[in-house]
């Protein structure tokens, strides 16, 4: 057989490729499959959080803010524990980012709160003197797109088996179930309930009025998303 291969360079090349590819596959695939499993404490996004994630992407927050804390002392002092690949299991796509014009936001929910985000999104310089981040006043007027968020939830559940409606282990040993609504109107209702909790901590009158009237301004969804980043 080796004599035959030596006389047929094309099939020899195919054989070399198959051998090296096999070695690569058994080294890379199991490790990759293991590392991309959700780590304990990671849970799928709720409808409102996902709508907020869409706002985040729509406004290109990821162009200036990364979501990837590297394992260096200087980073973990500032942003919290270094990121693990399993923490992005439900991010489609992940928002690691390649450039930090602003700080990393992977665990921003641990050290910033709703009312701070509200002040900061309206006028960043009012809380961070010298900040070069622009204000995002339209987030207080535009409505969040709950329909698209719900459609994405359905898609990732059916196509990628994202574990909605399944008890998931948390770091403190408890179990948390993220509910996926059966119908769009249920999803809108649950998003509104969640939005009310966020809006209760906000000071902007127009936002509170909008939520009371059953609307969800983009800022509420965005804050719900950022508070979920832990």
């Amino acid at each position, binding site marked *: 057989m080796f004599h035959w291969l030596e006389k047929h360079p094309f099939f020899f090349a195919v054989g070399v490729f198959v051998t090296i590819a096999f070695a690569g596959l058994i080294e890379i695939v199991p490790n990759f499959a293991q590392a991309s499993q959700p780590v304990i404490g990671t849970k799928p996004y709720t409808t409102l959080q996902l709508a907020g994630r869409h706002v985040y992407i729509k406004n290109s927050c990821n162009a200036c803010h990364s979501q990837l804390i590297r394992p260096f002392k200087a980073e973990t*002092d500032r942003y919290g524990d270094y990121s693990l690949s399993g923490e992005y299991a439900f991010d489609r796509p992940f928002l690691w980012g390649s450039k930090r014009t602003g700080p990393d936001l992977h665990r921003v929910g641990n050290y*910033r*709160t709703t009312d701070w985000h509200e002040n900061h999104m309206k006028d960043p310089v*009012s*809380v961070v*003197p010298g900040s070069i981040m622009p204000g995002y006043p339209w987030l207080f007027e535009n409505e969040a797109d709950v329909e698209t968020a719900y459609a994405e939830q359905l898609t990732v559940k059916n196509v990628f088996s994202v574990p909605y409606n399944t008890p998931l282990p948390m770091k403190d040993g408890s179990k948390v179930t993220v509910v996926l609504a059966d119908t769009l109107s249920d999803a809108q209702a649950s998003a509104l309930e969640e939005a009310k909790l966020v809006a209760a901590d906000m000071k902007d009158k127009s936002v509170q009025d909008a939520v009371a009237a059953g609307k969800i301004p983009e800022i509420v969804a965005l804050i719900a998303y950022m508070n979920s980043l832990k």
Partner: protein
Amino acid sequence: MNKLTLAGIITAVVMLGATWLSVGGSKGGLNGDIVNILAVAGAVALVIITVFVVIKYVRQMQTDTASGKLADENWDGIGEYKNELPAGWAFIMLGTMIWGMWYFLVGYPVNAYSQIGEYNEDSAAHNAKFEAKYASIQGDELVAMGESVFLAECKVCHGLTADGIDGKAADLNSRIAKASVMHVIMNGANNMKTDFPGGMPMGLNYSFADEAELNKLVDYVVAGLPESDTEGAQLFEKGTCNSCHGAHGEGMAFAGPKINGFDVATVSSVLKDGKKGSIGTMPAFSRLNPKQIEAVSAYVTSLSK
């Protein structure tokens, strides 16, 4: 001496001369640096070995005749001898395989570099250095450390001068603002769960006869419970504030925090659990180490003195 040896010697001399000029002409030369010395030694060895090997094989090509058993196939007229493995080659091959197995099973797994390992070593070294350097820090130095931590972690809400940026956060230059006192008396509080697990009940304003009395009490608390204000002190007792916060608002373990000023215990308690009050929500700052928490507390305490 034949031509081949002569050519070899001339080549070696020229190459070594070029090396000499190149090193001598470079900035600093060998510079006493072990890496530079090794590199030049390697270059010299390479020139000499190459010359010897080339001479050997050129000689062999001139005199050698092929021998041994030819393999069956040939490629465009080029054949292959089926010779025995050279012993030296075979030993090196075997040695490489043994070393490979050792490296695969023991060498790499035991000594491998890991980014997380390096991070853990860095953090441990840094923490040990921090501990050693600041173990007994106190007084002004502690306050200075607290200020630097405050400017890194706290100023985004409390502002550079700790004034709370127009009510966006608590003004730390005084213990409590009037609105906050009013808010906790009416709504209770559920903060500092670790140190004060009971929380504060809501509706304590009903202990007072009217708005004016309530206002007097609040003013008394905001003023820092001055001893001169006997009426305020009476109201403090009437509202049963003293049963948890102490007769002079100095605080009571597990019952209520100190409210006649800041101290290290109160501020650390807030940093540990975060809090939610009339102004908004403050997150917990568990990533600060105990010494940093003590330092920030000392700094905040120093602000209102």
